[in-house]
């Protein structure tokens, strides 16, 4: 039990607009430490919705959500923000880097927000993460000077900065070409196998999913496999 880091029990979710519709039906999910898990399914099956609930960003659901053994329901917005900051790293389909800041600064932001380390130390950690991803030479550039694949790698470095217990990805390769997808996938694999990082990736790319440790398949708001 102790090595289960993320657990969802009987999660139900409804959309109300335009009519009440159940998107997730009694979903049970649990992720163990250093697992590389992918969620697949057809478009509209509720896989992204599930991810946003598991990430604490969406709080409008029924059921139980435990992160690191702690119940998330009933926590205040500020506390949830803290959980996201400390324990979860995000990679989205789109990179969402702030163009006003340099690459290194973008990576540092969540670390500075956490405030456990001094600015200098956060910077050192950020360089370390960029090095893992092989883009430390781009650290001082602005995000809009980078290629799509590089941007996505910066986003991964940003997700890693606070050494989260899990990395969540919503179609992280969705916007990338074959070659860059391959690079990103290899990074994830390396993170999982070398650094024992837990990963939960939503994807509709079956080839990508097939190479992960475990596949959770969804259909019509239910886990079918």
């Amino acid at each position, binding site marked *: 039990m102790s090595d289960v880091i993320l657990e969802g029990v009987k999660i139900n979710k409804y959309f109300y607009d335009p009519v009440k519709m159940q998107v997730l039906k009694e979903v049970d999910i649990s992720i163990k430490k250093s697992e590389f898990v992918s969620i697949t399914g057809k478009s509209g099956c509720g896989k992204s919705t599930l991810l946003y609930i598991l990430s604490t960003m969406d709080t409008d659901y029924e059921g139980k959500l435990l992160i690191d053994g702690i119940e998330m329901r009933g926590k205040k917005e500020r506390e949830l923000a803290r959980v996201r900051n400390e324990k979860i790293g995000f990679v989205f389909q789109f990179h969402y880097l702030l163009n006003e800041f340099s690459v290194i600064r973008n990576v540092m932001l969540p670390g500075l*927000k956490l405030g456990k380390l001094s600015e200098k130390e956060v910077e050192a950690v950020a360089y370390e993460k960029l090095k893992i991803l092989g883009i430390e030479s781009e650290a001082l550039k602005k995000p809009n000077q980078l290629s799509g694949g590089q941007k996505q790698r910066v986003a991964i470095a940003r997700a890693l900065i606070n050494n989260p217990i899990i990395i969540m990805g919503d179609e992280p390769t969705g916007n990338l070409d074959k070659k860059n997808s391959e690079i990103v996938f290899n990074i994830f694999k390396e993170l999982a196998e070398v650094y024992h990082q837990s990963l939960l990736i939503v994807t509709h790319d079956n080839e990508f999913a097939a190479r992960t440790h475990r596949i959770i398949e969804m259909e019509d708001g239910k886990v079918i496999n």
Partner: protein
Amino acid sequence: MKFKLIASISKSLLLARWKQTLVAAVGVTFSITMFIGLLSFMSGLNDLLDGLIINRTPHIRLYNEISPSKIQPIDKSYNYGNSYNFIRSIKPKNKLLEIRNNAAVIKTLQNDVRVLGIAPKITAQVFYNVGTIDLTGVINGIDVEEENRLFKFKDYVVEGNYIDLKNIPNSIILGKGAAEKMLTNIGDIIQITTAKGERLQLKVVGYFQSGIQDIDKVQSYTSIATTQKLLGESNSYITDIQIKLKDIVLAPALAKEYAGLFEVDAIDIQTANSQFETGSSVRTLISYAVGITLLIVAGFGIYNILNMMIYEKMDSIAILKATGFSGADVNKIFITIALSIGIFGGLLGLLFGFGLSALIDQIPFNTAALPTVKTYPINYNPKFYMVGGIFSIITTYFAGYLPSRKASKIDPVIIIRGK
């Protein structure tokens, strides 16, 4: 640390849209500049107009009104004392203008800690003789030094030296209007006739201009001794005692007290000139209203720009929230942006406002009515700068409040899923 991070994010968001930011700040600067300029000018003008009256008016004037005695002999009669007596055609008694026992009154007043100074005065009705024509006039016999100390007599003597009035016997300072009518120059001797028919020759040592033409046409000044001689009275004769208090607010109460104590009539400045205070406060109110309106308009500018910034930076806000910034942090970021616009624009506004005031202060403003004023009056009261500064911060805070709240409520899921 936390604040530093928020400040650095605010700064980069601000600089990313520096042109809009500048426009917003210029709006605040402009309104604060106008606010300061307007209030300084308006208040300077108020002070000037009030000064016209207040500087020259005693806070309390003790005098005897020419009026018949309130207690007539019949009231004292044993037989009719308790009746209501109708008496027609009562005439006032002579010699009532003099303040009796004035030496003792003055001494008492001088020992009163609430009193700043006292200037005795005699007013006398006279005729200025110009050839065969007699012009009516009023001569004020004054204690020259005290009058200058308390009522800035010197400021209104436009030609000649005011102290000559004391040093040269039988001298007179003529009202400018009167002097022009009489075609006299300084050093000339003029002749006057008192109401009782006495004639006296006086040497003109200066001109006096109060700014109120009707006064300048009739009034003149001599020393107390000269007026006493003119009237043929002893050197203890005084008709008015002018009192200047340390605190003008006490005037009405003290006027009543002195009237009872010395058995004379007493009038305070507030009663005598109530219209001036009303005028001043209304003018100040108008300037504040205009200034605050300008600020509110600037506030709407800031509101718009922040709103636009939030729409543009929706993605950035979403990712900040996704990576662990709480709604309160996002709120702080946008409030910081609004406040920095307010503080930066406000400070510049205060500086420019000072500059504008200094500029207005240099514009020549010559008017016959105001001999001592050469440029437009400005009041450099630090209070205006404080009010301006505080208002700029408050308005920008409120202008930033709604957009910031909106930003803090943005749901990152909606933004991120929408892509």
